[in-house]
């Protein structure tokens, strides 16, 4: 036989060894990092579950894993914990592959600037994944080259401060190498700087206590978040809409990747199980409004605690986030004249069926909503929190300005001074069901553990974590009293998720104390 008889490259898949020949090839490689299957496990199986159910913003009683999150009795066999872990490391594996392939195999004809920008995108996304790992689990293994695991598969955890340092390094690289503008949906230097502000704000509390944070790191947070606020030229979506519908419209898929979005997962329709955004499939209050009328398997019930956070005027954000009995949503199930809610339920991420969105390929498993992981309003509030820093209150002009921009867009009255509590409440309302509140509470627990634990337990004392019913005629909300979860008080351990037991069994080194990476 001919010599080539034994060379059988795949004819349907390209080998990475001979792929990266031009800048547009690099763009195809980085495009896959923004969504699709590698983000599927995190987006659908962990993001809201950890970010909002664990933090007491929503609940669902018939899924034992979700109940564990809600009652904070999470064990190492919890499937959501595993999915979050696997999902984030899936993203990291893809990012590592792209970074290493560009560095090792990309054609020399591609400009260094383009290569660095592509690496910057991958490093940004990798940093987002490691940031979530650090917040959820603390010390975790850092992996930069997955192929090294073939020879050395069992890693130790790395100390949490080194994980954050790694995140900050990646983001700094991204901030320096990403362009100021790019195609819609792609990350820019502002995405990286906004994320960097948030990461420094988190790091500022790490290892501190008594409510004090590291001022130098706070200053870094101020620098980067402030730069985004002041110099990016970006503003909140429909900031100046006189009807204050900007917040509501922000979550409609027609406004996917608005300038407010700094990093959104780029979901597409018609890709089926395991590849798309299926948040609404699981969490919708009813299947009636979904593609093929399928789903609503785990309708998330908003908690009374969250409901109480909305002031009387805060109706736009409330209606965009949660449904109350009697609310009318004309954009959902338009063929049947819109959807009138019959109970309390989740609204954010519920976008309706394929006809409502003029997206014929949208199937139950693939909503076309681009889920926002980082948006400008978040960075505004990060900026304000960094300025507040170690003060009890602040009336700093910048802090108040950007804080009130968030409120005024939603038609809520401005404030004159800020405290840690007003900030935490504002973040919870503005970013409800965007996976952020648990991150906020963990950040709190870093520098003020005693009060953070108390804060969690106070939710229970008030039964705040319980769902509620709403009477549209009397306009009153009644806390659900039938199912009171009787749970032991939280401790500081409650702020760290257990590492999946399957991982610890496979890699016993994970049970050992973490080691430095640097």
């Amino acid at each position, binding site marked *: 036989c001919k010599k080539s008889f034994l060379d*059988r490259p795949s004819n349907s898949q390209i080998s*990475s060894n001979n792929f990266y020949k031009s800048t547009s090839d690099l763009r195809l490689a980085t495009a896959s990092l923004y969504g699709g299957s590698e983000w599927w496990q995190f987006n659908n199986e962990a993001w809201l579950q950890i970010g909002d159910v664990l933090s007491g913003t929503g609940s669902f009683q018939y899924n034992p894993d979700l109940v564990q999150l809600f009652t904070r009795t999470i064990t*190492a066999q919890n499937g959501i914990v595993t999915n979050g872990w696997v999902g984030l490391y899936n993203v990291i594996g893809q990012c590592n592959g792209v970074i290493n392939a560009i560095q090792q195999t990309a054609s020399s004809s591609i400009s260094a600037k383009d290569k660095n920008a592509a690496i910057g995108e991958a490093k940004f996304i990798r940093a987002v994944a490691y940031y979530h790992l650090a917040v959820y689990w603390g010390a*975790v293994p850092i992996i930069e080259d997955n192929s090294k695991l073939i020879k050395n598969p069992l890693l130790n955890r790395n100390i949490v401060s080194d994980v954050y340092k790694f995140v900050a390094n990646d983001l700094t690289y991204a901030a320096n190498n990403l362009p100021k503008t790019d195609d819609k949906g792609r990350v820019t230097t502002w995405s990286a700087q906004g994320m960097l502000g948030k990461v420094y704000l988190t790091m500022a509390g790490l290892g501190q206590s008594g409510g004090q944070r590291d001022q130098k790191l706070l200053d870094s947070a101020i620098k980067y978040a402030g730069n985004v606020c002041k110099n990016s030229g970006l503003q909140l979506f429909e900031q100046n809409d006189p009807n204050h519908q900007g917040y509501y419209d922000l979550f409609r898929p027609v406004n996917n990747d608005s300038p407010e979005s700094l990093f959104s997962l780029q979901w597409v329709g018609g*890709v089926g199980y395991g590849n798309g955004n299926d948040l609404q499939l699981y969490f919708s209050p009813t299947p009636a409004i979904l593609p093929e009328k*399928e789903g609503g398997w785990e309708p998330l019930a908003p908690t009374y605690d969250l409901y109480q956070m909305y002031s009387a005027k805060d109706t736009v954000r409330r209606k965009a986030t949660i449904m109350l009995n009697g609310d009318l949503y004309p954009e959902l199930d338009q063929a049947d004249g819109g959807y009138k809610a019959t109970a309390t339920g989740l609204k954010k991420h519920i976008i309706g069926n394929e006809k409502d969105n003029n997206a014929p390929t949208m199937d139950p498993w693939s909503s076309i909503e681009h889920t926002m992981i980082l948006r400008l309003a978040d960075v505004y509030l990060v900026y304000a929190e960094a300025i507040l820093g170690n003060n009890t209150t602040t009336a700093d002009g910048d802090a108040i300005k950007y804080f009130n921009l968030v409120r005024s867009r939603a038609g809520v009255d401005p404030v004159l001074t800020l405290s840690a509590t007003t900030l935490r409440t504002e973040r919870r309302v503005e970013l409800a069901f965007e996976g952020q509140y648990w991150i906020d509470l963990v950040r709190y627990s870093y520098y003020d553990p005693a009060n953070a634990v108390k804060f969690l337990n106070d939710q229970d004392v008030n039964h705040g974590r319980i769902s509620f019913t709403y009477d549209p005629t009397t306009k009153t909300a009644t806390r659900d009293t039938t199912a009171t979860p009787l749970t032991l008080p939280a401790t500081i351990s409650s702020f*760290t998720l257990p590492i999946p037991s399957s991982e610890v069994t496979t890699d016993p080194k994970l049970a050992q104390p973490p080691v430095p990476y640097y």
Partner: protein
Amino acid sequence: QTVAITGKVTSSDNSEPIPGANIKIKGSGTGVASALDGTYKIMAKPGDILEFSFLGYEHQIITIKQAGTINVRLNPTSSDLNEVVVVGYGKRARKDLTGSISSIKGDDLRQTQPTTFDQALQGKVPGVIVQQISGQPGGGVSIQINGVSSITGSNSPLYVIDGVIIPPVGDPGTGSNPLNTINPAEIESIDVLKDASATAIYGSQANNGVVVITTKRGKAGAPHITYDFYSGFQEISKRLPAMNLQQFATFINARAVVWGFDSRADFAAPQYLGLGTDWQNALFRRAPENNHTITVSGGDEKTQYLLSTSYFDQEGIALGSDFKRYSVRLNLDNQTTKWLRIGTSLQLAHINENVNSTSSSVINTALSITPDVPVTNSDGSYGGVTDPSGVVQPVANPVALAQIVKDLKTRNQVFGNVYAEIKFTKDLSLRNELSGNFDFTTEDQFSPSYTFGKSTPSPSFVSAAAAQNFYTVIRNFLTYNHNFNKLHIDALAGHESQENTFQNVSGTRRNSPSNDVQGLNSGDATTATNSGDNSQSNPTGGSALESWFGRVNVSWDDRYTLTGNIRRDGSSNFPSYNHWVTTYSGGFAWKINHEDFLKSVKGIDELNLRLGYGLTNNQAIPGNTFVTQLATVSSSLSGTAQFQNNLPNPDVKWESTNDYNAGIDASFLNGRLGFTVDVYDRETHGLLLQVPLPEYSGTVAGYGPGSMQAPYANVGSLSNKGFDFQINSTNIKSQNFSWKTSLTLSRNINKVTSLGAGGDDANLSEKSYVINDIIEKTVVGQPIGEFYGYVFDGIFSKPSDFKTHALPADPNGNPYPVSQAGGGIWYGDRMFKDLNGDGIIDSRDETALGSPIPKFQYGINNTFNYKNFDLNIFFSGSYGNKVFNQVAVPENDPQNHAAFFTSVLNYAKLALVNPNGSASDVNNVYVTNPNTTIVGLRNDNTNDNNRPNSLMIEDGSFLRCKNITLGYTFSPKLLSKISVNSVRVFATVTNVFVITKYKGMDPEIGSWNPLQSGWDQGYYPQPKVFTMGANIALK
């Protein structure tokens, strides 16, 4: 002065004429052959000695006294050692073997009326472990020869059918079996090549042994027409103990009291509810099967033919499964000229399979759907979940799914070979072979739109898929044979190239306008998806193998035989710098009974000692795993994007096995007693495996959305030691009654001797997605696939238990408190042993929980003949293996939101010492049924009661009465009036009973993945089968 001798040569067992028998005058070289009707005529002198011989029959010698008639009845050879067995690229008498080869004749194979031939090997071939993977009609079987040596790919042996290599059997899921196109009725014999000295000639593909199947061929003689048929039915052997409706309602009520929610108004008075739906009853049926085979064979001295056609039809015991096979076989041999012989073996098969019950997982659904759901409503529509208060589980009515969903697979298969054999001289010949296996498969799926009660309405879904696989081999080899006085030499040298290509395409659509139009076209075009030519879905796709091979066999004085094999293979599955490898082996055989010191000992027919050594290699991994493959995916940024599909390993290379084998074949007392024993020691190095890395690698070995496929790597070494033993005995042999027994026994000790990567903690672990944890962990020094977890030690039932038993700990290592509240450990939780004694329960308390590999496997076959009756009773068994009863885990969990086994009624029941005292005081509570294994009613699982533990691992030993057959053969006298040669009628019961402690449906659980061996994942169980049939031979 010569006289004419005439007569007829017949067979002593069935009185049929033997055409082509040799009749020779001893010492003269004069000889004739018998004609088609067995008659002969030869001229000889009185005093001459006539020698009658025919292959497969004992010689007979008769001294001529005068002219006249001499009719001769030849006795079939009773000693197995005279039989001819297939060695690679040739044949050899068993007594001349140097390698370890076990054989089974077609008739023995067919005793169990198997649907596919591989099922029938169970317990009949020593050293071969056969486990059913699915009882689905025509479903898969896993076969391991002399233990698990290689653990990658299919781990199955190489199948060679009339010289056609069937490409490696991938894991086709639990559904169809690629070997199911072969009709067992057409099989003449099966030879299993076990040790390296036997397999090395097949090179790298034969690392897991070789199963050589020879189909029947025509013989010169009058046409031989046979008609075989049987008909029968199958039924499920065992049902699992599901709760009925009253039990279910009572339990849900009790649980709702504790939980504070999930109470149901319709369950207020369980005693009036009736028994509800027995879903296993509703789903399983008594299913008929029928088989018809007609074979015509015959020929003359130049051309022999066999034409066979058959039809097989079987319904599955679960609704929505059936199997139909139509096949035609044509085997032709032609001696074209003195120097040229040509021929072909061809099979055409057409299979229609309904695999819906497997693809829709109706068996698992039947176990998880609750008894309150009716099969059909009073209006005739299908029932569904209607629970008005609780949550609607997306569990659809399995009976409805089995009936309304279509999943039909059609296979058309052509396989066979053509050959030409050229004889240059008496000693030297060349054989050219062109073999192929062409497989065309389509799969047609339609799922109508339906609504069952409150469960999710589903839109209609159409899917159509077509695939074709072409596998071709070109093979040329020279053979040379020569006798130099006492020295006999035969030699073989050849070249072979194999190529495997495939194409496939599939499309789906949704929303057909009606459930009556089910074609792909009828669906909504805007919902269309399509895919094709995806090597991921066919791991063996597009591969090639090129080989050079040779063999020399030298024997001296019919006493000593030496064999040497060598083969060089190049595989496209490795990077170019690792393409080529050499396989070699040597064997030595000594026929001790031919030595002078034994010649005088009577009663020894054969005594043959065999020694073999070889180095074999394995390449069974998918192609292109040494580079990163980029898959095209949809992206809203750029339309398409490139997803990295696998983590590459550029260092991947051949796996090698050192194989030592020693064996003895013996036969005594004119074949009445015989045995074969083999001992082997195999060391596999550079074990090829898709490495199950920790999940932080972003990889998965198997399916995991968004994870890369784990790399293939050479991970370590594995040792297999063991012995196989087979004894055949004719216990009683008299005119009217005979009793034969054969016993096979196999023992294999498997041990992982090294695992490279990972140091002291290196392991190969496998996760169960049902418990979301590792249940299998292979470590150095233990057998592969060992179960792993905690040791169950009762439930917390009295105050002192909280002092004597450690508690699980939180992520910071602090034990959880003892408390009734969520987040605490409480009465009714399971206790686990604190094996490391550190005062807490964590992963360091896990330990090995037993191996899925049996300590022994055995088969006992007894055949009785009394006059015209024959009776066969066959037992097969397995001892010392463990099974992971994964199916039972959710069904035994009171927190489950689906159906339960009745065992859950025995949940740990809490009571108060002082009824007026506190229910949260640890000293005031106890459990009334402390010996239960079922946890108490809590809406909290801080204890992780379903952590992998010894309760889930059960003893899988079993003794199965595999088959009882009673047959009756009509006497030839009776039949001579009608135009029938022989008639045998029979009745058979298969899977008569099983004796086992295992609580699941069937302890016999095979797997293609040695890391998931012994996992009961709710497979389609093996049915009990009753059949009656007849074998008719026409004149």
